[in-house]
């Protein structure tokens, strides 16, 4: 059993309620921070912990906090990003649903560190039943003196509010989220200025993921240095992975980032192996935006070394032969899955979610979807594959926000590693409607053809 810092108490009967959470040691981090530490000392602990943002980008959280501008007389805000809409990702939902007080505790400590007297949880609208759970936890925390005015006599005031989105993946991007919180369309802003200087209502703002903010609780309880001892290298602490696809035990797992990908997929403690005794074909290890890897490159790096479930190892080899930790949405495909079809559904997703501000993203995602659909339906041409490659390259890096990249990468990686499968679709327009290409280059991915 690996170390559990976040989900340790997830199965304690009644842990959703304040009484049980408190009895199990909850709100100790608030006591410690507000009674014995200064806000800067809290930030310092987070820095020492090596905690990296769990929303996808993996930016060091302590450093991000220290960038927050603190002009005299201007209120600052912490905003919790609970928009969780990256396909394959459902870990924040699990935390909020089963351990709401852990998030609230993390929010209070973090708000104290950042000086946020009004903190907002922006949650995707479809999670329509969760705001009730969070609001109840907030009310309980407030009734017990953990929120409100002059908390624990520290002089620090804090309120937490839940704001529901209304269906838009793009609102997970922090500046789009801020726009949405201001009651506008979720159009990302051009940076700079960064939210740390000009965020919600033009005030300095920190946006952090749910899991990131929950992790602040064990960091304060055990101290940043102790936290940093868990894990490996710059992948400190624990990470929640939401596993789905063709596996025996889909669900949310907490790992300490020292286990191998192979162990994660095949051990009974985690995914429990591939469903129905099938073989593993491919995997998208960090949410739909990150590159898909064929089985052989997933389990071992191009150098033949074991690949581990951490930031460094998952990205070993760059995009040529590696992928990314991303949001921790782990999507497993077995030998019967069609990479073309899967890529098509993801392209459709990004077309649907593009906010439409930048032409490469707005037009390019539409073209990619159409071309992929044609290839999937046996109506593609060989030149379409190169055209797809060309389009994704023209989107990447040419847009206001990273959604453009997020749409380009899955298409690029699918062609890079599964080009033979795309070609087979084109050459076998009838057959591809009735059967799948199968495992193909499971053990020997084709070399990259049009990477130049």
């Amino acid at each position, binding site marked *: 059993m690996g170390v559990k810092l976040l989900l340790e108490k997830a199965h304690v009967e009644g842990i959703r309620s304040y009484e049980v959470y408190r009895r199990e040691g909850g709100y100790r981090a608030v006591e410690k921070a507000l009674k014995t530490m200064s806000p800067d000392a809290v930030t310092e602990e987070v820095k020492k912990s090596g905690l990296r943002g769990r929303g996808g980008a993996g930016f060091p959280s302590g450093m991000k906090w220290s960038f927050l501008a603190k002009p005299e007389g201007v209120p600052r805000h912490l905003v919790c990003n609970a928009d969780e809409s990256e396909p394959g990702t459902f870990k924040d939902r699990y935390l909020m649903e089963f351990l709401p007080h852990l998030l609230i505790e993390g929010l209070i400590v973090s708000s104290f560190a950042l000086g946020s007297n009004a903190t907002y949880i922006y949650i995707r609208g479809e999670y329509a039943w969760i705001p009730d759970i969070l609001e109840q936890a907030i009310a309980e925390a407030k009734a017990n003196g953990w929120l409100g005015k002059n908390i624990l006599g520290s002089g620090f005031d804090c309120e937490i509010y839940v704001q529901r989105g209304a269906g838009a993946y793009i609102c997970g991007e922090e500046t789009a989220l801020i726009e949405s919180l201001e009651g506008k369309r979720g159009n990302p802003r051009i940076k700079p200025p960064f939210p740390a200087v000009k965020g919600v209502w033009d005030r300095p703002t920190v946006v952090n993921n749910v899991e990131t903010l929950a992790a602040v609780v064990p960091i304060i309880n055990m101290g940043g240095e102790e936290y940093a001892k868990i894990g490996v290298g710059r992948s400190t602490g624990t990470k929640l992975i939401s596993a789905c696809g063709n596996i025996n035990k889909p669900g949310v797992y907490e790992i300490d980032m020292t286990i191998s990908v192979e162990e994660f997929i095949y051990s009974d403690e985690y995914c429990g192996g591939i469903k129905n005794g099938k073989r593993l074909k491919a995997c998208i290890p960090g949410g739909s935006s990150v590159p898909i890897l064929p089985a052989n490159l997933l389990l071992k790096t191009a150098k033949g070394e074991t690949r581990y479930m951490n930031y460094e190892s998952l990205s070993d080899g760059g995009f040529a032969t590696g992928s990314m930790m991303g949001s921790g949405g782990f999507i497993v495909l077995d030998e019967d*899955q069609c990479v073309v079809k899967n890529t098509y559904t993801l392209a459709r997703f990004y077309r649907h979610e593009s906010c439409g501000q930048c032409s490469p993203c707005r037009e390019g995602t539409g073209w990619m979807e159409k071309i992929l659909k044609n290839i999937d339906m046996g109506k593609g041409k060989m030149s379409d594959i190169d055209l797809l490659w060309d389009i994704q390259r023209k989107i990447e890096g040419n847009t206001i926000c990273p959604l453009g990249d997020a749409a380009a990468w899955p298409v690029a990686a699918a062609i890079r590693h599964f080009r033979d499968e795309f070609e087979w679709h084109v050459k076998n327009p009838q057959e591809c409607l009735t059967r799948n290409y199968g495992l193909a280059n499971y053990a020997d991915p084709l070399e990259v053809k049009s990477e130049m």
Partner: protein
Amino acid sequence: MEGLFLSLFTFHFSLFMVPFSEEKLAKVQEIIARYPEGKQKSALLPVLHLAQEVHGWLSAETMDYVASLLQLEPIEVYEVATFYSMYNLKPVGKYMFEVCQTGPCMINGSDDIVDYIKQRLGIGVGETTPDGLFTLKTVECLGACGYAPMMQLGKHYKEHLTREKVDQIIEECRKQAGQLN
């Protein structure tokens, strides 16, 4: 003539725009109080959710009413209502089946679930049954990928869908609707 026009107008108005109850108005005030002074526009998304609860969709009249509540220009409301996929700009059935069709759900058989619902209800995607009970919609990832295939039904998710489970859900909805009428 003018009188007829006027009465038609008020008829139209009253059909699609129900002013909020006292309770809802109090809720609006509570929401506005969460933001700094003068930033009541931030209440727009939550208030549109409240408004949609009344009829299940947002008519132009309803949006104008929301604009007046928050002291916004109507266009500020329209542009937001048209951006977010959860706001319905047309009437929908009493029960909306929103089936996720993104990758992880697709590889677990969401296409079959959509086909089966179409067949059971005799409608296509985006359509409503003639009795106004059901609407079928396909949506993108709802954050339930590990419990696929799945759909959203009102406030909740229905997960691990099978054909049998779809039958049950349709049955339950019909029963519930029968009791309400």
